[in-house]
């Protein structure tokens, strides 16, 4: 009995995984023309949600945490919300916000996730909103990618491999430092 349930669950996950993995790619081309300036190769579309410029920063040895960044555009007419994140390589992934308060860096988990108002773009960038990968088993290596799954309240779940940029990268384009 137990075995059957486990198998059923595994099968369900496998189907979900395949769906998530291939469905967004199939849509990818439709979404690109919408904003001319970011006609980039890696815009991911999930329903009304577009994810662009996703990257994680490479981690230093023994650092058990890493940050993931991206821009998320809600092209739909309804508000949505990023409510969850997960990664194979991390024990846990949380949605966090950091902010400088004077010269003190404060970081908080956003338990309600990140609001994605209709028609707006929200940026997860160093120094602010980010996905925090915790309990990572091995360092994130520049040039590789990490499998990430994001869950949206309405658009559902999407999985993709997030490219790893330099330790102090500000974007997915390998420009690592002094770029400001």
């Amino acid at each position, binding site marked *: 009995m137990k075995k059957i349930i486990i198998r059923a669950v595994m099968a369900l996950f496998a189907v979900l995984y395949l769906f998530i993995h291939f469905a967004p790619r199939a849509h990818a081309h439709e979404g690109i023309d919408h904003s001319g300036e970011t006609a980039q190769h890696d815009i991911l579309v999930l329903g009304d949600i577009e994810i662009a410029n996703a990257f994680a920063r490479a981690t230093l040895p*023994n650092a*058990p945490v*890493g940050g993931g960044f991206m821009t998320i555009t809600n092209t739909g007419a309804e508000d949505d919300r990023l409510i969850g994140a997960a990664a194979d390589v991390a024990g846990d992934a*949380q949605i966090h916000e950091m902010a400088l308060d004077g*010269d*003190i860096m404060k970081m908080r988990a956003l338990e309600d996730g990140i609001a994605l108002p209709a028609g707006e773009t929200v940026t997860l960038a160093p*120094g602010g909103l980010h996905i925090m*990968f915790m309990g990572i088993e091995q360092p994130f290596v520049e040039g590789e990618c990490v499998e990430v799954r994001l869950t949206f309240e309405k658009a559902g779940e999407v999985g993709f491999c997030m490219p790893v940029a330099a330790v102090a990268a500000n974007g997915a384009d390998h420009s690592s*430092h002094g770029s400001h």
Partner: protein
Amino acid sequence: MANNPGLKSLRLGLWIAIGVLAVGTGLAALLLPRVSAEPVEAYGAGDYTLVDHDGLSVTQATFASGKPSLVFFGFTHCPEVCPTTLYEMATWLEALGPEGNDLNAFFVTVDPERDTPEMLKAYVTAPTDRVTGVTGEKAEIDKIVSAWHVHAERVALENGDYTMDHTASVFLVGPQGEFQGTIAYREASDTALGKIRNLLAKS
């Protein structure tokens, strides 16, 4: 990171240190009346005993060794500020080249319960061999944090884990431990380098 250049720069560093000490002693003798008239209290004055990432003792005297220092308070479970700052410290030191040979650089953990000397060593020495990791007993770290007027506060996360709110600036410290300013998080590298060159010029 081969052995030879490391040894070479260590030797060079030691010679420079000896030179600086010699000149410094002369200058100190000249300036002594003024200094004693207006004593400069070392910024991080306090009675703390810590260890560096090689297990060597670190005390207030370490930051007043006759060499100027860059001092940063961070931790390895830090997703962004600490690796970025460490990386930037490495790029500053690289940009300074021999000009910066006289500069010490320290990464003091505010999370000693998780950051052992071994962990810190691999972490801080990845981007550069010029930064020394510092940790110790929690009570001793508490003392240095308070002596340096650093903010370090444990914040619980939902999975039972925790993170630290902490001062994100790099301290610029003169050869006798005197406070000479800070470099803000993600300060433009030209500005940061200018501040460090100033510190070196004053030292």
